[in-house]
């Protein structure tokens, strides 16, 4: 039996972001905690970009409840596996739209091209960008899985990141 992946860092935040300042603080916190074991600035930027976009989505679309955000980094062979999980309630209309978008992003053979097409559609739209999740897929290079049960939405953005060797304790 394979041994469970060794967890290198884990952070769970349960709050409903209501301001840009709160989102910036939480994103900085993730960067500081996960920056150390990941090490590479580009990979850290991918993670913080994804977290920032996800927190803004929670601020905009989560229903009046306390959503949760978990960020977990575990060892995956020589590299790391980053998982950013959110759980929140949302309206039926909102869930239908998000589910449709996530399905298309998961299926996209070329995430950058899918992102470009979404940008073109978004440019013509007055309200909302609809680009946050596509940006996570294309720019942060994370894949998605999701589950909708009644009004509860769970999204996981995940992907491989580099991992620094473990530091021995002094």
């Amino acid at each position, binding site marked *: 039996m394979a041994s469970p992946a060794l967890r290198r860092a884990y952070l769970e935040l349960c709050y409903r972001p209501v301001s840009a300042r709160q989102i*910036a603080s939480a994103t900085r916190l993730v960067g500081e905690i996960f920056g150390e074991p990941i090490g590479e600035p580009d990979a850290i930027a991918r993670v913080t970009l994804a977290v920032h976009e996800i927190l803004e989505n929670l601020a905009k679309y989560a229903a009046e409840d306390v959503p949760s955000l978990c960020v977990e980094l575990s060892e995956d062979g020589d590299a790391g596996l980053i998982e950013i999980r959110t759980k929140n309630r949302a309206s039926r209309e909102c869930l239908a739209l998000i589910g449709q978008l996530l399905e298309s992003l998961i299926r996209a053979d070329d995430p950058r091209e899918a992102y470009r097409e979404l940008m073109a559609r978004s440019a013509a739209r007055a309200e909302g960008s609809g680009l946050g999740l596509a940006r996570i897929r294309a*720019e942060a290079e994370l894949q998605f899985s999701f589950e909708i049960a009644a009004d509860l939405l769970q999204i996981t953005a995940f992907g491989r990141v580099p991992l620094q060797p473990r530091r021995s304790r002094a």
Partner: protein
Amino acid sequence: MTAVGIDPLSLENFSIAPTWDGSTLRIAFSGNADMDARAPLEAFVKRLNVQVLAAKLKRVVCDMRGLYFMNSACFKCLVQWIDAIVKSEVEQQYTLNFIKNPKMAWQARSLESLRHFGPAIVHIKIEP
């Protein structure tokens, strides 16, 4: 067109400072382009595009070196700006030359996305 014609944008955590470098208009972004910045940025970009088209400028330099982060809602404002340029008459079109900060890794990825969206309009470079 003179520098007086373009008002800077100054918010608590985000600002845009237009300056002239000879006949070149430089727009310096700084701070954090977050959810509070979207509406002012959208209005700024729309106004700026009208002014640049009227002045028949051929390029605008966007200095992103002081920009800590830009969220997708603000990013959409840049997408709409590029889209508006592309949809202008060919002789009116101008280029956007983005100066990126190599120390902010997200900029390389996001600006590359803009170039992918408007390859004839968007240029990216590094300046010391």
